[in-house]
């Protein structure tokens, strides 16, 4: 640090501690819980209570989400025929594409925030794969080619953190054994947070039919879950949902009753939240499609996928390495090797559609090779 900077660092003015009253008020807002008003309302007057961020943006008509803007109205409607049975083989990547929509009522218009995620999972044990996230409201474009990726050497994943198809196809096919496996994988964390890891696995990965059926049956018998017929996902597809209630919400995993594929997920208020009535849908997702593509060369030999270098000025997607969802699992396995290129030394680039006065970061990865 330069001396001129260090002087300021070493002689910072005294700062009072963050008042507990203000902290609790803001934290409660972040959790969407009722709390006393903050000391003054200036900030809230500008942005509105965070609880209102969760306000409903659309309505459900016949179980189909109709939204004001940015919702499924501008997406193609998928059917389960877009989700064929796959026969993954070594040397391939399983690509799944998911549409996610969350309530965003920061504005009076009450709109959905929609975004797509595309997951790239190796069939063979080869790292944790990659997930790319499209910019809000836009599909992830374009579809990558194997040559777009690089392969870098990486350490072998701990068994407990593996999620490749080669492992999934060996998992138990009996519900009780599958339940035991899931509990073990979650490090004993059967809380709703731990169940989030199951949702992640089901949504981002592809498992054979016997294992999918076993997961469905295992969850059906899991304490707290109940079966709900006819729940629709973000694309309007009806399925058989397994739901549990948590913190004023019904959280449903929606399965195709024939293929046991996870079509999507839905969260609905079971307790009124501020101005939001019971029954308000807060979150929807849907697997849009899945397919097999050739893996880049060298992946099966102990390599890991490295995210493609974006074209200059590209805003298509942000990449991340999927990680275990629960703290319990995170603490029982070593950190997963990153398959992302090192951060560029160049600056963050502002999104082409930033909010006024708010910086947003875009990916600027540079291949390490």
């Amino acid at each position, binding site marked *: 640090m330069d001396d001129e900077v260090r002087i300021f660092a070493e002689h910072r003015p005294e700062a009072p501690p963050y008042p507990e009253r203000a902290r609790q008020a803001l*934290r409660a807002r972040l959790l969407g819980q009722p709390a006393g008003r903050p000391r003054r309302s200036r900030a809230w007057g500008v*942005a509105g209570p965070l609880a209102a961020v969760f306000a409903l943006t659309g309505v459900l008509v016949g179980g189909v989400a109709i939204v004001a803007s940015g919702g499924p109205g501008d997406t193609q409607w998928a059917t389960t025929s877009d989700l064929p049975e796959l026969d993954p083989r070594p040397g391939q990547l399983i690509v799944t594409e998911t549409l996610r929509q969350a309530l965003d009522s920061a504005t009076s218009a009450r709109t959905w*925030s929609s975004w797509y995620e595309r997951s790239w999972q190796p069939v063979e044990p080869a790292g944790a794969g990659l997930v790319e996230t499209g910019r809000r409201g836009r599909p992830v474009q374009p579809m990558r080619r194997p040559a777009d990726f690089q392969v870098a050497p990486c350490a072998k994943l701990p068994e407990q953190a593996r999620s490749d198809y080669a492992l999934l196809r060996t998992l138990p096919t009996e519900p009780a054994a599958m339940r035991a496996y899931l509990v073990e994988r979650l490090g004993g964390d059967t809380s709703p947070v731990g169940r989030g890891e199951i949702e992640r696995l089901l949504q981002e990965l592809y498992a054979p039919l016997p294992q999918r059926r076993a997961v469905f049956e295992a969850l059906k018998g899991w304490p707290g879950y109940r079966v709900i017929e006819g729940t629709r996902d973000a694309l309007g597809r009806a399925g058989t949902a397994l739901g549990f209630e948590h913190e004023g919400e019904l959280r449903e995993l929606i399965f195709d009753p024939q293929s046991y594929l996870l079509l999507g997920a839905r969260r609905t208020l079971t307790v009124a939240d501020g101005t939001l009535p019971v029954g308000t849908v807060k979150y929807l997702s849907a697997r849009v499609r899945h397919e097999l593509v050739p893996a880049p060369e060298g992946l099966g030999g102990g390599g890991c996928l490295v995210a493609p270098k974006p074209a200059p000025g590209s805003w298509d997607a942000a990449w991340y390495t999927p990680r275990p969802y629960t703290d319990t699992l995170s603490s029982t396995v070593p950190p997963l090797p990153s398959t992302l290129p090192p951060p560029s030394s160049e600056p963050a680039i502002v999104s082409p559609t930033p909010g006024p006065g708010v910086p947003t*970061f875009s990916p600027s990865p540079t291949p390490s090779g």
Partner: protein
Amino acid sequence: MTADAELIGRSLTEPEAFARLFDRHADELFRYAARRLGGELAEDVVGEVFLTAFRRRADYDRAREDARPWLYGIATRVIAQHRRAERRRTRALARLAADRPGGSEAAFDERSAERVSAQQLQPRLARALTRLNAAERDLLLLLAWADLSYEDAALALAVPVGTVRSRLHRLRAKVRRDLGPFVEERHSG
């Protein structure tokens, strides 16, 4: 410890995960804002920073595990809305130098650095701050009070690292003009 990026990603579907990001960084952001604006305004700033961050979380680049540059970037924009309040506060701090016995610039220059107490130096630092433009002040304080690296400061300010370095070069020259004897003595010592 779960990376910030993972918490933000998780908060897209489980908004309560964002509260953990808040727990992790709220104190630090409050202290930073309080040093610049005072405690009262800092409460508003922290509220606005996290509200904005929550609304914008889908745009966060989760390749960046540490969310501090992002949060400080938002804080910088929010604080910029309070420039007048910051100027008033900084000038008030700077006036303390002249109000104190022996606080004149000449007296400072003649004084050995070892004898300059922190209490006496802070008004001098505040005066130096008043001589920086807004962009220079933002950069200096992100480095000195938020402990960001050059790269992280560049992210926070959404400028190239090269711009950070050239801006830093200019502001160091200004600071050295105000605090020359102290800086040079530290350097040689």
